[in-house]
C-alpha cells in the first residue's frame, strides 16, 4: 500500500524541489513539474496515483489543470494546495473532483497522510471498475 507514484505541480521552484526531495526520502516515487501544461504532458507519459497541485500558477491555473486531469484520468486523485485561501476556488475545486483542498504551509506528515488516503481511495475505485 505504501508505494505509489506522486506528481508535484508547483511553479515555486524552492517549494517544489524541497517537497519532492522529502517525499523521495519517504520512499515515494515522486516527480516534480512547474506548470499545469507540463503536468498534463507528464501524465500522458506515465501514470500517477496522486497529484499534488498548486492552485495558483501562471499559464494554465490549477483549476483548469484539475478539470483536464479529472476528465482524462478520472481515477487519479488530486490534492489541491493553496497559499491564498479562497473559498470560491475551494468549492470549485471540490466540485471538480479534487480529493482535498489544503492550505500552505502544510506539515509533511499531514500531507503524507492525505496522500495515503487519496491513494487508498484510488485503489477502492479501481476495485470497483
Amino acid at each position, binding site marked *: 500500500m505504501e508505494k505509489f507514484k506522486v506528481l508535484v505541480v508547483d511553479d515555486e521552484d524552492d517549494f517544489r524541489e524541497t517537497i519532492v526531495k522529502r517525499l523521495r526520502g519517504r520512499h515515494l516515487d515522486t516527480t516534480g513539474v512547474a506548470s499545469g501544461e507540463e503536468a498534463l504532458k507528464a501524465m500522458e507519459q506515465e501514470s500517477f496515483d496522486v497529484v499534488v497541485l498548486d492552485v495558483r500558477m501562471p499559464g494554465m491555473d490549477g483549476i483548469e489543470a484539475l478539470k483536464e486531469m479529472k476528465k482524462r484520468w478520472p481515477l487519479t486523485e488530486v490534492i489541491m494546495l493553496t497559499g491564498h485561501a479562497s*473559498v470560491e476556488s475551494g*468549492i470549485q475545486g471540490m*466540485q*471538480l*473532483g479534487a480529493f482535498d483542498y489544503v492550505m500552505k504551509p502544510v506539515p509533511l506528515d499531514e500531507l503524507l497522510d492525505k496522500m495515503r488516503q487519496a491513494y487508498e481511495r484510488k485503489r477502492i475505485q479501481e476495485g470497483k471498475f
Partner: protein
Amino acid sequence: MWPSLPLGAGRGWLPWLAPTLTLLAGLCLWEGGYRFFSVAAVALSALGCAGVRALCVRLAQAENARQLLDERLLTTQKLAALGELAAGISHEINNPLAIIRQEAEWLRELLSGARFQDPAQLLEFRESLQEIILAVERAREVTGKVLELARERQPVIQKLDLNRLLEDMARLVEHEARRKNIRMERRFAPDLPPVESDGPLLRQAVLNLLTNAYQAMEDGGTITLTSSWAGPDHVKIAIRDTGVGIPPEMLDKIFLPFFTTKPPGTGTGLGLAITQTIIHRLGGTISVASQPKHGTTFTIVLPLSWEPQEQKG
C-alpha cells in the same frame, strides 16, 4: 382504498362498525378487496373498544404517512426531471463558453502587441475583455454547479477523521472570514471514532454550509463549528452562525435548487441543494433551525458506518 373513519365521532358508531365492514367485505369481494376487509372485520369484532380506536388511529396515521411519502416522491421525481433538463442545457452551454473564453484570452494576447493611437482606448479594450472573461467564468460556475447537482456520484467510503476534516475546512474559510471580522469557534468532541464516509463529498457539504454562514454575516460575528456524538452509532456536525437568520416561511424553500436571496452574481441557489443531495447519499440527514436577526444552525447527522442504500433521490 381505506374507508375514511370518523375518528372524532363519539362511541355511537362503534357497534355498527364491525357489521358494516363485514358488509363492505362482501361488496368488495368481487373487487379483490376480500382479504383485507374480512381480516379487518374479524379483527374488529375480536377487539375491544379501545383496541378498535387504536386501530383506527393507526390506520389514519398510516394514510397520512402514505400521502406525505407520495408528495415527497412527486417532489423528488419533479426535481430529478428538472435536474436532468438543467444538466443537459448546462452541458450544451459549456462548450460555447469554453470557446468564448479561449478566444477572449487569445484577443488579450494579441492586444499585448497592438498599438492604439489613443492609449486610453487600449485600456478600455483591456477592461472590456476582462469583463467578458469574468462573465464567462461566472456562467461556468453556474453550469458546473448544475452538473454537480445532477451527477450521480457513488460515494467512495473510507474511514475519516471527522475533526481533521472539519478543521481543514474551517481554516480555509477562516482566512476569508477574518477580513469580515468573523470569528471561527471550534467545539470538537475529542473522542469521536473514525467515520465511514466519503471525504471529498463531505468536505464539499461542509464548505457550502460554512460559506453560507459567513455570507449571512455582514458586519462581524461568530461561526461555531461543532462535532459530537448523536446516539451510539451516529455523529453530529453543527454549523452555527450569528447572521441575519432565515424567516420561518422561507425555511422549507432554502433546499430547493435555484432558491436564493442573494443578488445575481453572488448566489446561484444551488449550495444547499447540492449539500442535501450529498448528505442523503451519505446516509445522513440535514436540518436547519433559525431565528431571524439572531442566527442559523445547520445540523448534519451521519452514521458511523455506512451501508449501501436503496435508490434514493
